[in-house]
């Protein structure tokens, strides 16, 4: 009968839904459009960024794993290369000592004019940054950059020659986008140690 087969379809539909809703391992990315964002999470920032693949994203798309985040730009000749080296040291340490890769590294560029996705990709290739772990972001609007810098406490200024004056702060965000720890300037041995230990603690 038509009713019986309809009921059967309904039941299997419900079972299927229950299966989908069953608890998963927390390391899987949560659907961020439905997840509640805490009041002090950086995921409250609504600015639009593009990554090195040209994909659009907001910061909340990085939810689910802790994030090491810093701000640089590709034509920076002085401290940015060192900042990246510092992060690579932490990356190596976590990998070699603890086989830990359950986090993300995000670089956000100050330079809305010159740092196109292609430029970001070329830079990542030059520095051999593993795209499985590293993401390089660039924004279309200067206000997006300004807002991120403000919440991270980074001061910066675009200079007449296209360079940027900027302070160096490396930030560890929780998987919910909250600031856990910040390193001002280059990471000392003690800072690196504190960072790696905090990261390891964030394993769900």
């Amino acid at each position, binding site marked *: 009968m038509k009713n019986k087969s309809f009921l059967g379809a309904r039941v299997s539909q419900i079972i299927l839904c229950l299966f989908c809703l069953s608890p998963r391992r927390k390391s899987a990315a949560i659907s961020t459009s439905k997840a509640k964002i805490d009041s002090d*999470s950086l995921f409250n920032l609504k600015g639009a960024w593009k990554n090195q693949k040209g994909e659009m994203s907001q910061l909340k798309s990085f939810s689910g794993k802790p994030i090491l985040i810093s701000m640089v730009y590709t034509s920076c000749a*002085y401290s940015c290369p060192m900042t990246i080296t510092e992060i690579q040291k932490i990356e190596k340490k976590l990998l070699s000592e603890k086989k830990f890769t359950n986090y993300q590294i995000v670089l956000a560029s100050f330079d809305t004019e010159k740092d196109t996705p292609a430029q970001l990709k070329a830079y990542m290739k030059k520095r051999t940054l593993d795209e499985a772990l590293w993401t390089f972001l660039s924004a279309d609007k200067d206000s997006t950059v300004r807002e991120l*810098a403000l919440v991270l406490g980074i*001061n910066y200024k675009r200079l007449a020659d296209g360079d940027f*004056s*900027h*302070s160096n702060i490396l930030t560890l965000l929780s998987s919910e986008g909250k600031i856990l720890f910040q390193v*001002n*300037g280059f990471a000392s041995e003690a800072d690196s140690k504190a960072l790696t230990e905090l990261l390891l603690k964030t394993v769900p």
Partner: protein
Amino acid sequence: MKIVRCVLIEKYKEKYLGLAALFMISGFFYSSAGESANKKTPFDKKGSLKNEVIQLPAGSIQSFWLEPLDKTEKSKANFQPTQLQISSFESQIYPVSNREFINFLNKNPEWQKESVSKLFADESYLNDFKDRLNLKKGVSLGAPVTYVSWFAANAYCESLKMRLPTTSEWEYMASASETKADASNDDEFLKRILEWYSEPQGAAVPKVGTVYKNLYGVWDLHGLVWEWVEDFNSNFVTGESREDSSLNRNLFCGAGALAGGNKRNYSAFMRFAFRSSLKGKSSVSNLGFRCVRSR
């Protein structure tokens, strides 16, 4: 090889910032200049204010910072002020008032005191408000809104399809007196600004449109409240000039080697020092804002 250039506030820092800190700690406030030279009230019979937008002509101001003409120059004796070119833009003639901000809060409840994100405002946010949309007793609707964070000010301006002025745009507008386009070397005008800065806190913030109107028709840039600028976090204060050989180069990158500029413009030092002390979520009793837009 690119020379590392770093931003410094020179020996003036000790002299001026100490005083600046003293002023700020004592919670100085502006009180009305009393009888304003321009008496026409900006409030209509209902008490509403029309915050018109007027055009500022293109022009230039002397930079606050001095730069070496030759980038390899190390002696600060050879640093020169530069002229910053300002393109024509449009500005609100008054700082944003409580009345205007309440209107914004009504349409954008996420910016109300009770619901604002902790990322975008600190505990003092909208301290003059009793609750969501109502001011505390004694606070005037026509007074400039204060205890607003940069994020809130920015959101307000965006709601009008405007933006916050850059530091240069603001300083450009504010360098005009009632009669002169560039009064930044006018000792009389500079003296008046410092007098305004040093008046003790009055009972309540006066209404907008009561201090003075400058040559361009913009009101109260000095004498009422400090004002947010878009790029307030673009300057760095480093250590004592005596120690600049031990400058902590870890902290910043690629900054211009600059020294503090016009020694006579002490009020400019105070503003730069004040801005350097702010964070994006700072909500301060004598800090408001106005909006501008590009042409």
